[in-house]
């Protein structure tokens, strides 16, 4: 199994997150400082509409909104190194601890992607320039999502390991063997 650092490096290469994207993401920061609060508010309104997620956020919406805002502005910080990776893995693990299925993270990321696209096209008069900025935003959002899911899958197998006493490597091998048998 590749380490999270290796996966992170591979994701950046595979998604072609380059210097141009970093420049565009930094340029987007003021746009999201201005419109981010509304995106965060809509995001929590949506979580409140679903019974499963509403139960998880009840009584701490304001604190979570502040955390969400920090997460959002870090997208535009221009620094996507080891510290960024660690922060994103911690977010994934926090989601596992509260028992949130990753599909909710994916579902709400959809709303952020869609709201981001709209805000960017409303801000830039040139359509091609807007599209280029949207694409840079999508790249970093997808990296975040992949890292959160990675942390989730890792933590989930760790739970099976701690509950059964089976070593983590053994579980990985069993899954691999099962995969071969299942072909």
């Amino acid at each position: 199994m590749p380490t999270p650092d290796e996966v992170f490096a591979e994701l950046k290469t595979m998604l072609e997150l380059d210097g141009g994207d970093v420049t565009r993401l930094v340029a987007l920061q003021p746009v999201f400082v201005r419109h981010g609060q509304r995106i965060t508010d809509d995001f929590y309104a949506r979580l409140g509409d679903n019974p499963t997620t509403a139960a998880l956020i009840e009584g701490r919406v304001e604190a979570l909104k502040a955390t969400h805002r920090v997460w959002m502005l870090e997208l535009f910080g221009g620094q996507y190194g080891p510290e960024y990776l660690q922060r994103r893995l911690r977010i994934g693990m926090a989601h596992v601890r509260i028992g949130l299925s990753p599909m909710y993270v994916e579902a709400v990321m959809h709303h952020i992607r869609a709201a981001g696209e709209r805000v960017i096209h409303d801000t830039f008069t040139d359509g091609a320039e807007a599209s280029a900025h949207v694409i840079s935003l999508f790249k970093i959002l997808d990296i975040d999502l992949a890292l959160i899911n990675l942390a989730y899958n890792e933590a989930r197998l760790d739970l099976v390991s701690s509950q059964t006493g089976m070593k983590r490597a053994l579980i990985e091998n069993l899954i691999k063997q099962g995969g071969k048998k299942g072909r």
Partner: protein
Amino acid sequence: MSTPAEIYEELKGFLDFGEGDAARLKTLGPIFAQHGASITDDFYVVLGKNPETAKLIEGRVDALKATHARWMGELFTGDYGEGYFAGRMRIGMVHVKVGLSPYYVEATMTHIRNAAERIIHQNVADRAEATAGFTSLLKLLDLDLMVINLAYQEERLDLLTKVTGMKRGLLENLIRQGQKKK
């Protein structure tokens, strides 16, 4: 535990995926019939550049391109019911069987999403209409991704069940108990 089919319906609700989206996706069909092949070609270039994915597609790129073109065409049929869901679950299971980590699916979905954003804005003159069409496509691509990931998680636990002899329900319980302890 909800069944995968129930989760699919819940996800559609959560994404507000409705008839308006289905109609907008249908109208995007001709644009992707025209430009879809270039997205598929670019997609396989990206997969070919990465050693892990290059290994998986070696020697069968043309067959896979045909499957990919079919997957893309199905995005714009306007029908997203049980048959669509079952087809997407099968795609997820195929990915587990070939040993592909879900993050590759996520990473490559980025390229499709980004290419689609550009193509829609280049071909739909009204920007608000382009954004609305693209948002509908985003919803469906995210639904696809979630179903593929769901299939991956299901299949992975099933494989563990098969090899260890532990019942699937027991594994789910162990995970839940572990979560409560934390």
